[in-house]
């Protein structure tokens, strides 16, 4: 082969551009609005799915049709019209910008506060970057390392093609298609998501993150994630990103299923920062998520979440502690400001003996927002020596917001030990005064106090995430103190 010259590069770039153009033509085809069996079939066909998958989706759709939208959550919002949504549309091609100067200065300001590197900023803001961009090579190295260990990490649509036996075996086993309204809807129309399989005894050498998954494209509004950790394996999975996500999709209904087999451990961390709507409560994403994990003997699942975005959040990452000695953990910070509403919490279902669960939930409400904790701790009659500790703390800023706690505790075994406590407080004036005295301005002082309040949860996040999350808290509460 002849020497690779600048001309070649130019040619390659041109071809690439053409390639994109070509794809755009095909993908611009968007399905008409509305949902019926044909649409489900068409989505499945589009993804080139096998027959069983199509059937699975249709079954979910038929169940969904008979369901009604739940309204028990402590949130108020206009019900989406499900026939007004287009269920398949290709990722929209964003205009490429030439340099960071063209990016919305507000966005840049936020990036700066979050401490995101210039290269990353470019990527996030959709700025054209040099051909030798780090992340591509990083991603390739990632893939190689994972491949050597036998770890499968790919979009779920690819996994359906390449590892149908695994997907078929585990999909829908933790969150059945009939589970709830939004899970059924997701099962019928999910566009894409991640699939991850860790083989027996393998400790995943790095944090798996959707951020580094190549070929990501737009995962769309109905994301489906399936993580399977085989016996004795370990994985830490990061979802989301601290950078603000501007997305025009109003409704997001994702499903996440985790399976931790004997002695396995899954750590699942989420930072959610979808568009929360503006100061007057206009717009914003509805985030209705079903997340659940299944623990076999000695397994452990740990959910950590930092929720700062979305206009309406409805999310209960849960653990089914099926195996003996299994452990479930839930650490959450939910921040609501302006007109945001969050109804979030967890479910810990203790089935096996000597199972343990810990719930630490921190809710911070400011502005005119409503923040609810809703959790269930259930000890079944055969779950000997089950242990649960729950702590829900709320911090209120101003008297226009609300903090609510709805814990459900159901115990059918006498050896169970359950502790639940909840407190509600505000930032003390003496605390603020103390900081002011020492030259820390009020805004910074509040950030400091909020950080202290959230420390127990922030500590559970992977290092790099924790730093960003801390800053994210500050930004979310900016201007909430008057």
């Amino acid at each position: 082969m002849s020497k690779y010259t600048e001309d070649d590069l130019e040619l390659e770039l041109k071809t690439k551009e053409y390639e994109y153009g070509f794809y755009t033509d095909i993908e611009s085809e968007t399905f008409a609005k509305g949902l019926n069996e044909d649409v489900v079939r068409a989505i499945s066909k589009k993804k080139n799915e096998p027959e069983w998958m199509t059937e699975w989706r249709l079954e979910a759709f038929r169940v969904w049709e008979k369901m009604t939208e739940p309204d028990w959550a402590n949130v108020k919002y206009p019900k989406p019209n499900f026939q007004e949504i287009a269920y398949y549309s290709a990722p929209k091609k964003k205009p490429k910008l030439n340099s960071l100067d063209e990016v919305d200065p507000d966005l840049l300001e936020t990036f700066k506060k979050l401490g995101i590197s210039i290269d990353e900023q470019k990527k996030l803001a959709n700025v054209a970057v040099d051909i030798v961009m780090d992340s591509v090579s990083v991603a390739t190295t990632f893939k190689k390392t994972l491949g050597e260990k036998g770890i499968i990490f790919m979009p779920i649509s690819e996994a359906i093609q390449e590892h149908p036996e695994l997907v078929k075996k585990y999909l829908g086993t933790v969150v059945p298609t009939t589970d709830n309204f939004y899970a059924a809807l997701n099962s019928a129309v999910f566009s894409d998501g991640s699939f991850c399989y860790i083989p027996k005894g393998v400790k995943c050498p790095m944090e798996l993150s959707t951020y580094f998954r190549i070929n990501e494209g737009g995962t769309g509004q109905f994301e489906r994630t399936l993580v399977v950790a085989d016996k004795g394996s370990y994985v830490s999975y990061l979802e989301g990103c601290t950078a603000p996500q501007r997305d025009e999709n109003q409704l997001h209904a994702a499903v996440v299923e985790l399976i931790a087999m004997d002695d396995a451990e899954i750590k699942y961390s989420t930072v959610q920062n979808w568009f929360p709507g503006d100061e007057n409560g206009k717009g914003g994403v509805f985030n209705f998520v079903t997340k659940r994990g299944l623990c076999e003997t000695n397994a452990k699942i740990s959910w950590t979440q930092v929720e700062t975005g979305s206009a309406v959040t409805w999310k209960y990452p849960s653990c089914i502690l099926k195996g003996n000695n299994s452990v479930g953990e839930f650490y959450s910070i939910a921040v609501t400001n302006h007109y945001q509403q969050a109804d979030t919490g967890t479910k810990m279902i203790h089935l096996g003996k000597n199972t343990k669960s810990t719930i630490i939930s921190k809710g911070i409400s400011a502005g005119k927002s409503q923040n609810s904790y809703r959790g269930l701790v259930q000890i079944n009659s055969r779950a000997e020596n089950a242990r649960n500790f729950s702590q829900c703390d709320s911090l209120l800023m101003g008297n226009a917001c609300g903090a609510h706690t709805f814990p459900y505790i159901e115990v059918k075994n006498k050896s169970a030990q359950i502790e639940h406590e909840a407190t509600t407080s505000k930032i003390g004036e003496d605390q603020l005064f103390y900081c002011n005295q020492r030259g820390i301005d009020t805004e910074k002082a509040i950030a400091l106090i909020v950080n202290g309040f959230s420390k127990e949860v922030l500590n559970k996040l992977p290092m790099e995430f924790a730093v960003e999350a801390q800053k994210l808290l500050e930004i979310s509460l900016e201007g909430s103190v008057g």
Partner: protein
Amino acid sequence: MELLKDKILSSYVAFENDININSDVHDIRTEALENFEKLGFPTKKLEAWKYTSLNSILKEDYSIFPNKCTAVELADVKKYFIHDIDTYKVVFIDGKYSPFLSETTHDTIDVCLMSAAFAKPKYKPVIEKYFNKVANQDNLTSLNTAFAKEGAYIHIPRNVEVEKPIQIINFSTCADITTMVQPRNLIVVEENAHVQIIERHQSLTSNAVLSNVVTEIFVDKSATVDVYKIQNDDINASLVDNTYINQKSNSVASVHTFSFGGNITRNNLNFYQNGEHIDSILKGVTIIEGKQHVDHHTLVDHIEPNCESHQDYKGIYDERSTGVFNGKVIVNKEAQKTNAYQQNNNVLVSDKATINAKPQLEIFADDVKCSHGCTIGQLDDDALFYMQQRGIPQKEGKGLLMFAFANTVLESVKIPEVKSRITKLIAEKLNVNIGFDL
């Protein structure tokens, strides 16, 4: 369930024959009946009834207007009274007033009957001002309102401290039919007055009895009301107790509920704080076994600033019994400086027993101190071992520990005779002789 509902609806005409239908009160009744017709009996599908099913007791063919079935001799029922002190008594047998067992008064205070208060013009202003004003519109309260006819009527004027407690006792006696009774009580305590009330429902038959009680209590400024509910009924008797308390500034109201007996017991206890510097106290001890079911459903609505509420519920559950605690504290936007405290502790003695707890906080104000704690656990093995080492048998040791566990509730009982009665009941219930009075 549907059968019973139809029976109730069709019996309304017969009920109307018996009362004055040309009154404002009757308009309220008719409206409540319509409401009940619409709502029907509560089912587990309702969030408020998630853990309590009435199906097993609603399939009975209850007699809605039982006649007084059996004569009751004072000697037979004396043990159900707090008889070692002088008290006023308002006694009903199968929903009908028993002048023989009662001791009422019109001397400065009114301790008498709802039927009289409905009928006599003299009471009209009070009825108009208070009747059905704080009770809500839920299914069973509406049912009671529709058939509101008899119950205790207590009116304490300003600055009166009632010198002796008032007992309200409902007996059921019918040996050949199952009965449903719907007592309706109205208690109005005016400014700076003080009254203590002891309430009890007792079945003297082994037939199924369902009592659906509504009590409205109005506590005016700086008044004090203490209510003691003793629930130690026959195992075939079920009770739905709806109590609504409306408090004004600087008042103190306390309700102690002791649930030991009965089949299904549901307590809906609601406090509304319409004023500042109010204190509301809700306490309860539940000790049950067999297939008994006790559900405490409390609500404290903090509407104005600088108020307090204290809740303390203890439960001990043996055999296949089930317990529910559903406590709700609402702190409204205006209610700054609220201090709300809620505590629920439970001990499961048997593997078949179940406890469902749902302590809720709904807070809209920022300068408040609100906390709730809920635990489910066992008796301390080390403490038990310590006592056994010192020669206290295991059974008595356990009894002592359970006593200590429930004692925080007993401590605040202000009538010594009630306290010693409850202590005896607990000892009986736990089947121990603890050898001293608490």
